[in-house]
């Protein structure tokens, strides 16, 4: 057990969790304004791809992150326009945007880099690893927390910022009111659409960062469909955390920990199939225990499975 739960395990948990957490925070913002965003998977995929493209074009990792954020913001505008202006069912739009993201990235991968499946360039510089001055000298904690990519720290800072924004500021309260009761919000002069667009665009920014962490963080490469369901896991984290940033973080950490733990268990001669299954099973069990009917109803109102 000692060897199973060492510092490296928690350090890799943080790495695994970052894209999920960022996307899930975006999802939480969207559900706070009454849009159930199934397109997170596609958003993150576009972010990951445009991160690599940005790096290729500009040769600078920060510009690449910026480029990823801008691309996903544009992509999220499609989601916003269709579900807010055209009144399309957000779930249906989300599903088709996921198709579009997969189709576009595989096509552009061929068109731009002329490769199939994956693009990797060893000269490309990924996100740096930051050592935090004092913390890195603390024995166990330093090993876990220090030496991560800046986006890892940013994710947790953004979580705090969002928690504060949503529950302690007037503007955050207005944003929440849009999701709670649009009619009431409208009647006291809150611009419903403006808040919805703000949330969708912010979701785009967060998913762009998530994608950049995925393709530029640990390894500097893009593979077809490299999100591998992380966007959907983020969606689960959003629901489990009841669109509450702290809760979203807790459920993302649960999944990330299980993911990292599963990889660790492979050392014990358990077939990788079962260890890879672990996070999904644990998530299902968590869904069973932590469900909030009132929040579910909100999601349903937004066109969930149980309209």
């Amino acid at each position, binding site marked *: 057990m000692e060897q199973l739960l060492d510092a490296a395990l928690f350090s890799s948990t943080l790495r695994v969790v970052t894209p999920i957490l960022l996307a899930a925070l975006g999802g939480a913002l969207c559900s706070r304004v*009454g849009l159930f965003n199934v397109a997170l998977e596609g958003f993150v995929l576009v972010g990951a791809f445009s991160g690599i493209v940005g790096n290729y074009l500009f040769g600078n990792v920060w510009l690449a992150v910026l480029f990823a954020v801008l691309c996903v913001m544009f992509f999220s505008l499609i989601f916003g326009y*269709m*579900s807010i202006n*055209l*009144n*399309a*069912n*957000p*779930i*249906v*739009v989300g*599903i*088709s*945007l996921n*198709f*579009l*993201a*997969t*189709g*576009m990235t*595989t*096509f552009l*991968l*061929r*068109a731009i880099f002329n490769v*199939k499946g994956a693009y990797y360039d060893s000269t490309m510089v990924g996100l740096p690893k930051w050592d935090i001055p004092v913390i890195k000298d603390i024995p166990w904690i330093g090993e876990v927390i220090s030496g991560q990519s800046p986006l890892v720290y940013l994710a947790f800072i953004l979580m705090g910022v969002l928690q504060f924004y949503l529950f302690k500021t007037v503007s955050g309260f207005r944003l929440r009111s849009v999701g709670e*009761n*649009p*009619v009431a919000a*409208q*009647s006291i002069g809150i611009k*419903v*659409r403006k808040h*919805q667009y703000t949330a969708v665009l912010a979701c785009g920014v967060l998913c762009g960062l998530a994608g950049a962490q995925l393709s530029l963080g640990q390894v500097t490469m893009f593979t077809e469909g490299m999100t591998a*369901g992380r966007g*959907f896991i983020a*969606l*689960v984290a959003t*629901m489990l955390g009841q669109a509450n940033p702290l809760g979203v973080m807790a459920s993302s950490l649960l999944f990330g920990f299980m993911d990292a733990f599963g990889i660790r268990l492979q050392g014990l001669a358990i*077939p990788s*199939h*079962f260890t*890879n*299954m672990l996070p*999904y*099973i644990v*998530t*299902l069990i968590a*869904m*069973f225990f932590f*469900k909030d*009917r009132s929040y*579910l109803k909100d*999601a349903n*109102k937004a*066109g*969930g*499975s*149980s*309209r």
Partner: protein
Amino acid sequence: MSIIKQNLRGLIQPLIAVVIGLIAGAIAILAVGGSVTETYMEMWKGAFGSFYFLTNTLARATPIILAGLGVALAFRAGFFNMGADGQMVLGGLSAALTALYFPGPGWVVLLASIIAGIITGGLWSFFAGWLDAKFGMNLLITTLLLNYIATLFTGYMVAYPFMDKTGSAAMAQSEMIEQSVWLPKLFQGMGLHAGFIIAIVAAVLLHFFMKKTTMGYEIRMLGSNPLFASYGGVRRGRMMMIAMLVSGGFAGLAGAGEVLGTQYRFLDGSLTSANYAWSGIMATLLANSHPLGTALAAILLSALQTGAMGVERNTDVPLEVASVIQAVLTLFVSARIGYTFWKRRKGKQKNGTTT
């Protein structure tokens, strides 16, 4: 007359979408410096150009039709079943195992395998429906999660207990099924097998089921106006479980058909990497969950996919251009579908979000 009109109206929307999709494809082709007419000619030839290519397209369409029909049924009832992928691989695996180990003459085993595939897919899907109806766990999420579990489980089954150890290839696959259990090919030397006929019959049957039976009516009512349905005495939870059972059954049948008609064994990843289930969901979205329309849309999507292979063989344009076309036309249609969905919902939820 009105029936013809109604069916025509159902066709116009997908047709416009196809045109838009082709325009998007043309832009993509121009972007990589290809010739639009030449590419589309090659695409047509690759999909329908000869009898061989035609049967190839229809063979590929078979699992897409079946998976799409299952999803269409669930969508009609208002349930977002995203788990066709998992239901399909489980159906395929259990069909393969039944075909390998069930005793009896060939046709009995074949029948048993198909039924096993349907039941397994159905039960897996039913599980998700049960979780939602009983415990309020969101169906869309559970079906997505169950996909991963099903895919990994089938992978384990053919990588360890049922792995093919007879051949030299160390691949995660089951043993080859005996020839007497195979679904017969419709034409000598062509890929098209009897599963296609099953799929078409299933589409027609589902169409009449939805149109003519009480239960079909209840399902449509539940999807279009849940409040009215519950007022009329439709029990949503029960209906959800039944709809999911049947929906998964179709997906399971799709997997069984692929295993018994094309691959003759269960090969890990062969069903998921071909994207049959997701193409089925696309077909459903394109056809607005209309069973016959879903079958047509499935053939169209399959034609795009096989056609793109022809493009890849004969021009410099990459075959991924097909996925761009598919995605754009799905997106275009979805906006319209969404509109009708919304109109139906408006009655019960009159809030001012849109003004």
